């Protein structure tokens, strides 16, 4: 499988995504500068984490105008797999590929720590390899991860099974104490209506090897790889 990893000015988890996809999981992966315009030949697009344009305006608000984003939007609208991690999630919201917005953490502080996520919601190629209710241990690292949408949007997301990850404790209980940033309804990751676009604040690429603390993040990558294999066969 061949991944396009987009590098905006200020992106920093491009290398980490490349490391996990290529060195750990043996996939093909290229880092594409944001001025590229073609995604031809790629099976999936990764918008990684970082501080695109320094997050000096609203996070992701400038990156959405990068030349490559036109192709990313077309790629997503064609039903091809796109994942936005952290700053990438913010870019997806700013691009209206996903609903809602990510506000300043309710602590008003940057947070970097290992947290727990519970798999919920409908089928998506990004998480079909993860059982409903399964708990994942992955790190977060963000200043603006406080997910917000109006009640109508939230109800629509919930009723259509588009909330894929929720912050929880290690037993899988969704509690206020397990919410690291104030996200409404503990939401950590959502998909679009078609299920091919996933946005999430936590960093699966940082949970890709036992020696760095765990491999739960690979469940997401393995889901999409498995999906690609099945689609091809």
């Amino acid at each position, binding site marked *: 499988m061949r991944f396009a990893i987009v590098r905006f*000015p200020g992106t*920093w988890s491009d290398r980490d995504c490349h490391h996990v996809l290529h060195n750990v999981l043996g996939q093909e992966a290229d880092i594409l500068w944001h001025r590229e315009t073609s995604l031809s030949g790629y099976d999936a697009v990764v918008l990684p984490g970082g501080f695109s344009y320094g997050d000096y305006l609203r996070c992701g608000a400038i990156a959405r105008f990068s030349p490559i984003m036109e192709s990313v939007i077309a790629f997503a609208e064609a039903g091809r797999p796109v994942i936005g991690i952290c700053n990438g999630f913010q870019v997806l919201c700013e691009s209206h590929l996903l609903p809602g917005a990510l506000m300043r953490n309710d602590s008003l502080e940057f947070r970097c720590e290992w947290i727990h996520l519970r798999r919920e919601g409908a089928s998506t190629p990004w998480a079909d390899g993860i059982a409903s209710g399964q708990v994942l241990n992955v790190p977060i690292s963000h200043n603006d991860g406080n997910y917000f949408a109006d009640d109508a949007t939230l109800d629509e997301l919930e009723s259509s099974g588009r909330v894929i990850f929720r912050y929880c404790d290690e037993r899988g209980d969704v509690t206020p104490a397990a919410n690291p940033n104030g996200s409404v309804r503990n939401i950590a990751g959502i998909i679009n209506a078609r299920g091919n676009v996933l946005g999430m604040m936590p960093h699966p690429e940082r949970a890709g090897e036992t020696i760095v603390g765990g491999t739960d993040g690979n469940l997401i990558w393995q889901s999409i790889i498995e999906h690609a294999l099945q689609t091809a066969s």
Partner: protein
Amino acid sequence: MAVSQEALDAVALSRDEYDLLVQRLGREPNDVELGMFGSLWSEHCGYKNSKPLLRLFPSGGDRVLTQIGAENAGAIDVGDGRCVVMKVESHNHPSAIEPYQGAATGVGGIVRDIFAMGAYPIAILDSLRFGTLEDPQTRYLFDGVVGGIGGYGNCLGIPNVGGEVFFASCYNGNPLVNAMCVGIADTDKLVSARASGEGSVLLLVGSDTGRDGIHGASGLASRTDPESRFAEMRPAVQVGNPFMEKLLMEACYELASQHRDWIVGLQDLGAAGLTSSVVECCARGRSGAVLNIERVPRRESGMTPYEVMLSESQERMLIIAKPEHVEDVTALFHHWELHCEAIGEVVGGPDVIVRENGVEVARVPWEIATEPPEYRRAGERPVELVELNRFDPATLPDLATADATGALLRVLARPNIASKRGVYRRYDQQVLANTIVQPGGDASVVRIDGTNRAIALKTDCNPRLVYLDPYVGGAIAVAEAARNIVCTGATPVAVTDCLNFGNPEKPDVYYTMEHAIRGIAEACLEFGTPVVSGNVSLYNERSGVPVYPTAVIGMLGLLDDVEQHLTAAFSTPGAPVFLLGADIHQPAVTLGGSEYLEAEHGKVAGLPAVDLVAEHNLQKLVLALNAEGLLLSAHDCSEGGLAVALAESSILGNSGFEGDSSLDLGDRLDAALLGEGQGRIVVSARPAAVDRLHQLAGEHGVPVSELGQVIEGQSFTFGPISTTVPMLREAYEALMRL
């Protein structure tokens, strides 16, 4: 014509220094030249008071690739054709005035020092000292400094993997903010900060030049200013732009790692801006240069040559490019959406010549500019030490058995002992996906990308001990840093240091600095860890009272197999726990300078001691034990003593501990539990390894005491202490509830 006192004060030169300058120059300097010389001869750039003492450090070795002080940072060979580049630097005075930006630009400056070497920065550590938390200003400074370090470093995508936070009233209003950065490079791609080869082109890249930070080096960093002037000095603190730095870092690394042959040298613009950057490059390359400063991109119009030459605008780099590759270099920076302007060229001769629109505005011989006077002063041992050292903790009543649990919980909750999780969770600790041991243990372990090797990193200094005995305290800072490195299974290999003292013109401050340096030097010789880079920050005083002498040691260790790393956490029920290096019985004297003594008796007194040979034997033993795979954990026993070390291992591993019921803690309970004698490490071992552990300890001449074992469940008992892991954690996380 006599120069006015105001003009000299503005650049912090003394009348004698000015006269010496005129004599060496053979003429009076003009205003621009005076500003340039003043900056270069400042304490901050010129190390006038410290340089003769810094020569006492052992600085060479098989692995050392750079000469100390000769480049932006020190480089150490780590095998496989790669090297680690490292340095620690202070940003104390700016942080006192404007904590967020002061700390942020401190990170920015040290990171540029690392990528100026052609290395990719892979780790940041920060060593912080604040006043007491009861002082509301401390809370403002603490929050601002931590926010600034995080705000800048997080944006760069460099993990912040460790550091220290220490509180004491002597730092009220004068916090210490020391940041260390570590990078990695292919050794054959290392870049020097030199200008040579007539016709080589000077390219200025990154941010535009503004009126910010003028006199940062000569003013802020090289004297003591009263707090009443902070408001008017705030504009001298620069404002950071980490996004610009991120682009510069990526561009410079691409240039050095892929196109090393395009360039002669690479240099950052730090203290004294363009002046020090160009003059120092010329001095290293023994070449002159012509600068055409009308080509320097400005933030505002009307800037004078003086302002352009002394601006400390951040996020700027100087590239010395081969003439035939100027277009290539320019294209590379344009790809990264950065400015790149040719502002001058390398010429023969002894001078840096500054021109504006063809008119010469300054001519500075680099040799004179980079050879400021050096001062070797006569120090005097601080008089208060006589009384403080004479204090005998044995005269204090011992800790009551019934209060042992309470005392441990109270010491664990002390800001200097308590977990700093509330600080480091505001820093990205994992980006680059190579952080193997995260902050919160002894030292941090970072994998070398694409290999199975790792480095261990630690900053350390117990300033109370340097205060009570500068020589011994300096040696202990090195010993403890090395002990922390060894507790991860890594071998200590090199040191970078940040020496924070008061006004060196005071004989007692000078004595303290000299003896701390001598102590560090002796310990570095013993451990075979040369000092490869560093920084000195003087004039750290408030109302005439200096801060504790704070000799921060940043240490690098190497681990050949990352899988063999150790942590401090108790993990395996049934594992026997040992104290290596000392008997459980401890004399009252080990309470000297301890956290317990200050917490429970309100005293900072006593006489610290260290046996460097015994310490080295202990460290060799732990490495030998780990090499045979006998250990499950290792933890330095230092601040807070043995009881705190055991508690921390239990908390980190979320595992219970049961002390042997037959334990005899001797006749000083306080010293046995909470004394801070050096040269002690707590390990848990594989049950089958006990005989071999005793055998190896015997061969190394290191005493071993059996303490107990790791157990299932959450109970924690040791001698008269009886509590639970959740109770310990509750106390240990006191700082989280600020």
